[in-house]
């Protein structure tokens, strides 16, 4: 059993998806999908603890040896991400049955769970695999499932959002495919570890340069780096709320992971940062993304769209961490990936609760809503503080390391820019707090009750996680530190 953990991680949801179809009844499908998500969570936790104890876990699919067969490889870099994906997925599924009641027609519920499981399998697959082509395949599995999930949104604009994302996502994925193909041409291998060993011999060829460029651009499309983010706000806004929760907390993180894996592991630090102006590009786009997206977020009335833009800004922070090209920088990036998953998960779940009760999360209709839905808005408040980076929340921890990394490089203006970015997030979060808490309930405020427990419980688990990991940081910081050390030390 233990030996097969890394493949079980992906196989369980992948097999569970068609089984859901057989179950037909939506309650059964929900119960089953949730059970599966918790099983994958257990597997990923077991994997993480094993990786922490005894180093990377490698698994040869079908018994074919590594460079020829497909290898699944779980190490310090992806193990925590696997936990994040399955944990968020499990919590979101817990809330999903209630949340989709009003958002998706009854007869499509079963399909919803199927698509969800496939999406999850895809994301886990991208993360767990050690094979470059496999990354592409799982990327497409998760993407196709995601397009479906988004198209399930109640508003007809969801269809357009889904189509937009389909076009952008396919172009991104095809770019990645080109990159992988060119790499294969030069090295004759698709295994990441093998690629890492063979690429240095041919690294000064145009083909490898082109491969790298295609790959990075493709991935940037998927992770919505400014200005390739145009698909994201619509997709997040019109998708069913619970889907947005899941995607915002995990999907972009997985794309970032792919980027880190290729930059630092496959191509290697030296190649990536000496032959390419990667540092300048990521730095500029990261900072531009932080400011532009944050400013746009300030002017949104639809809160899901506001948080979507905030996600684009957060991707900017994550990219900054990579652009520092230092161990502390990459550590801050990894940390922020996990932490941002927690905060966005909590925030979007709170909005899911708002949407469940009000039908839409429109700020202009939320006057004094905190008196009607105190627990939900308290969750939003804490999640928001975490997003701003107030001490004792996870947001503070990531900002702290991010700024430390900037100072370590001697980039004082960048450190200042990070903090200024936080100021912008203060503005857009505080707008909501002011309306929800300090405006008297007006006539446009619908007469609603507190969200049901099925939404509140997962929401507050995430909120408490925001606080817990903001105070007891040894696990998250420790894991990120080890992963960063691996990227800069061991593997090559």
């Amino acid at each position, binding site marked *: 059993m233990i030996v097969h953990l890394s493949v079980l991680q992906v196989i369980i949801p992948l097999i569970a998806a068609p089984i859901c179809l057989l179950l037909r009844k939506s309650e059964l499908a929900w119960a089953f999908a949730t059970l599966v998500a918790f099983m994958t969570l257990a597997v990923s936790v077991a994997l993480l603890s094993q990786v922490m104890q005894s180093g990377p876990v490698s698994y040869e699919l079908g018994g074919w040896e590594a460079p020829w067969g497909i290898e699944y490889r779980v190490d310090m870099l992806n193990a925590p991400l696997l936990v994040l994906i399955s944990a968020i997925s499990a919590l979101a599924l817990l809330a999903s049955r209630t949340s989709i009641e009003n958002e998706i027609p009854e007869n499509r519920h079963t399909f919803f769970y199927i698509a969800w499981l496939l999406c999850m399998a895809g994301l886990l697959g991208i993360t767990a695999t050690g094979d470059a*082509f496999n990354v*592409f*395949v799982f990327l*497409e599995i998760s993407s*196709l499932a995601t*397009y*479906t999930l988004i*198209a399930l949104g109640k508003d*007809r*604009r969801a*269809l*357009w959002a*889904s*189509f937009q994302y*389909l*076009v952008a996502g*396919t*172009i991104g994925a*095809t770019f990645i*495919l*080109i990159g992988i*193909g060119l790499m*294969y*041409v030069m090295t004759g291998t698709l295994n990441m570890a093998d690629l890492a060993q063979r690429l240095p011999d041919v690294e000064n060829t145009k083909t490898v340069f082109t491969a790298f460029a295609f790959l990075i651009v493709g991935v940037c499309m998927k992770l919505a780096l400014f200005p390739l983010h145009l698909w994201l706000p619509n997709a997040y806004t019109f998708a069913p709320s619970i889907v947005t929760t899941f995607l915002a907390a995990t999907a972009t993180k997985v794309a970032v992971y792919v980027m880190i894996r290729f930059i630092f592991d496959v191509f290697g630090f030296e190649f990536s940062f000496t032959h390419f102006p990667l540092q300048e590009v990521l730095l500029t786009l990261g900072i531009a993304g932080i400011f532009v997206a944050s400013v746009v977020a300030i002017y949104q009335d639809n809160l899901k769209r506001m948080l979507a833009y905030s996600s684009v800004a957060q991707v900017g922070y994550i990219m900054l961490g990579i652009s520092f090209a230092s161990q502390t920088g990459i550590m801050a990036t990894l940390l922020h990936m996990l932490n941002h998953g927690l905060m966005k998960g909590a925030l979007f779940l709170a909005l899911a609760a708002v949407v469940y009760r009000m039908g839409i999360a429109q700020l202009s209709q939320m006057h004094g809503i905190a008196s009607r839905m105190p627990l939900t808005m308290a969750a939003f408040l804490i999640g928001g503080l975490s997003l701003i980076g107030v001490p004792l929340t996870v947001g503070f921890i990531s900002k702290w390391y991010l700024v430390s990394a900037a100072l370590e490089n001697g980039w004082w203006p960048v450190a200042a820019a990070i903090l200024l970015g936080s100021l912008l997030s203060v503005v857009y979060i505080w707008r909501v707090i002011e309306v929800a808490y300090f405006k008297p309930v007006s006539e446009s405020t619908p007469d609603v009750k507190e969200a049901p427990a099925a939404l509140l419980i997962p929401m507050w688990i995430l909120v408490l996680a925001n606080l817990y990991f903001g105070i007891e940081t040894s696990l998250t910081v420790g894991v990120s530190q080890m992963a960063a050390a691996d990227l800069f030390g061991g593997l090559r």
Partner: protein
Amino acid sequence: MEFLGLFNYWVVIVLMMIGFYIVICSNNLIKKLIGLTIFQTSVFIMYISMGKITGGTAPVLADGITLYSNPLTHVLILTAIVVGIATTALGLAIVVRIHESYGTVEEDDIHAKDKQA
């Protein structure tokens, strides 16, 4: 010679640009999907070309033959083709639903209708 030798790669580039252009500039969603498919197909051709080795034959073990083409790229691209078909199918399904709820598949009209609402 160099130019002609890389003939199929030029085709790949031309097809890719045509596809890309259609995706960006076409107003009709169906045409966009066609462009997307052309774009993907160009990459398939690229993969297939990569596996060809001058003078190599099909990779079936037989006496007297030592030079084989690389079969792996073909296998890989089979997967990619399947993915491509799935994408196109899903895209078309979405377009059908867009047509159902908007009554049009022209991007401009869709935006106009959203603005009205």
